[in-house]
């Protein structure tokens, strides 16, 4: 699999959020993007060199999930979505804007808001720490709140807006711990928060900072630290890097891959950036108009896409060197393009 480049690779896990430094900029200017060593790095990050962290037992089973926006005649945003997510697996969720991928992901945690309503199907969470499975859609009130974040954490699209501007990082990290781990005292919360910041490569001295004092990349790292606070078994990431430039984007992705390897959580990763998904995902679900039209391993999806829409999606990303639509495979013929129209 030839890895598409989205940017040069910066040093690993810097303690500070670096500005795109001079060296990186000049590397781009000199056109040294074709360095094969750099290209392989994410691939290695995913497998970690010593095999995949994906286990065989499932963490989440979604069966025939239907979500409808009850406006006008009703918009069927998610139709009969079914998939099984294995422990430690990264499942990519790709598709164009408005295809229902975010609605689907929010439904997994009952985070959808009216007028959206789940009209059918089931979401079952297979808890590592408890014998019984959790019927997520049956949860409500305090049981639902206790389930949220401790089992399924989320990282949202707007790194800039996901943090409350008037509360310090310490308060916002502490909020999670006070709510879900009420037995922890002040000192323990502080220690845990600092530990989490270091885990994602943010200096522990920044714990008293406010969101506006951090760069976009650092805020997203803080969000990831917050998501890790309760050692969740599943993390839903809704376009976590879309608002970031490619350099920071790559750092964050490497961070996520490393943490996944170390901590073993599964990830549902939503983005419209299919090349990026191909790099990081174990499996990819392609959505179109509320349906999962194709679900397969990244390799299969890349080399042998079955659904015409998948082919069209793959064909719509430009290559750095070839013609438009030439990004993926040589042999992506004009006839294929015709067929997808």
């Amino acid at each position, binding site marked *: 699999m030839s890895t598409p480049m989205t940017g040069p690779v910066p040093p690993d896990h810097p303690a500070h959020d670096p500005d795109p430094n001079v060296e990186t900029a000049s590397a781009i200017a000199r056109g040294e993007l074709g360095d094969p060593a750099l290209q392989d790095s994410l691939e290695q990050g995913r497998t970690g060199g010593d095999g995949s962290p994906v286990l065989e037992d499932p963490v989440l089973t979604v069966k025939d999930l239907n979500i409808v926006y009850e406006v006008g005649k009703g918009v069927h945003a998610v139709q009969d979505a079914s998939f099984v997510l294995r422990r430690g697996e990264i499942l990519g969720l790709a598709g164009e804007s408005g295809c229902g991928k975010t609605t689907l992901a929010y439904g997994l945690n009952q*985070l959808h808001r009216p007028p959206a309503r789940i009209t059918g199907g089931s979401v079952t969470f297979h808890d590592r720490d408890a014998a019984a499975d959790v019927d997520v859609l049956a949860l409500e009130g305090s049981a639902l709140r206790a389930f949220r974040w401790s089992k399924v954490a989320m990282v949202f699209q707007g790194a800039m807006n996901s943090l409350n501007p008037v*509360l310090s990082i310490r308060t916002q990290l502490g909020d*999670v711990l006070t709510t879900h781990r009420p037995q922890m005292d002040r000192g323990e919360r502080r220690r845990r928060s600092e530990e989490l910041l270091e885990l994602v490569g943010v200096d522990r001295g920044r714990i008293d900072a406010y969101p506006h004092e951090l760069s976009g990349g650092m805020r997203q790292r803080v969000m990831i630290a917050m998501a890790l606070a309760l050692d969740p078994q599943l993390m839903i990431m809704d376009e976590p890097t879309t608002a970031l430039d490619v350099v920071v984007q790559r750092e964050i992705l490497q961070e996520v891959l490393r943490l996944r390897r170390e901590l073993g959580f599964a990830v549902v990763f939503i983005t419209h950036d299919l090349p990026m998904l191909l790099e990081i995902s174990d499996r990819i679900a392609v959505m179109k108009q509320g349906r999962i039209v194709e679900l397969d391993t990244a390799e299969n999806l890349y080399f042998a896409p079955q659904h015409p829409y998948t082919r069209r999606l793959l064909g719509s990303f430009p290559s750095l060197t070839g013609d438009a639509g030439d990004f993926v495979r040589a042999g992506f013929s004009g006839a294929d393009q015709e067929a997808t129209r």
Partner: protein
Amino acid sequence: MHLLRKIGFYLVALWAAVTLNFFIPRALPGSPVDAVLAKLALRGPVAPETRQAIEVMLGADTDRSLFQEYFAYLGGLLSGDLGVSVTYFPTPVSQVVGQSLPWTLVLVGLATTFTFILGMVLGTLAGWKRGTWLDSLIPATTILQAVPYFWLALLFIYVLSVNLGMFPISGGYDYTLVRPAFDYPFLSNALYYGFLPALTIVLSSLGGWLLGMRNMMVSTLSEDYILTAEAKGLSPRRVMVMYAARNAMLPSVSGFAISLGFVVSGSIVVETVFSYPGVGFTMLQAVQNNDYSLMQGMFLIITVAVLAANLVVDLLYGVIDPRTRARG
């Protein structure tokens, strides 16, 4: 350092206000000496010596330059000498101001603060539970705000005081029963007398706070950090207060700063309708009697009050919104 700079800025503003306060009355037509003589002439013939005596009293007899007078004025201010009131002759202006100020500060200050807090709380709830019966609070309070201030006051007096006899018609306390002092009889009496004016202020300004806060709540609730807070599994109460209301109230706090500044001056109508012995009522008396030194004293107090309220809210704003905090 930051605090010192802020206080320095307010001192400069205060100096500018004091200076304007000195020059503006001098630019006005008419003379205070003539005003006093006219007032005296109502009681009977005025002897020429009287005119001279009044000139001496008001400091209009000397040939000092404007510049010298300005410094004499500043010196007088520092020693608390604001001149003599014509209306309440021969009481010094500082004493008149000192007597009326506490009434206004307590009545209008407390009423305004209470309205603000009530508006924030109800606005938070109405925004949080939008689409429920709480939404009907908005048209109800806006109607009360649309009704003219004095008309509402007169209505209350007519219904509650005159017809039902539940409240006194006018005044700050019953001077036949109690004397101003910090004891229970006086304070409870003052509270009884102040209730109706305060109710008028609360009802006639609640709608604005409520509407503003409710709408800010609704738009804040669609922010990403609210969704994050919900995904974090926080209790609804914590999400509502610390994540939604904390952010939604920021614009209202600026508005509160402005309205606090007008606490001292903005009560003329209510105090007049209720004959309440506060600053507004005194100011009306000063204007009606061409009492320049009293007016000057009043303006000074109002200016200082506006500046002080702004300084307080300026500092408070730094506490509630970290983005406005300057950090070294």
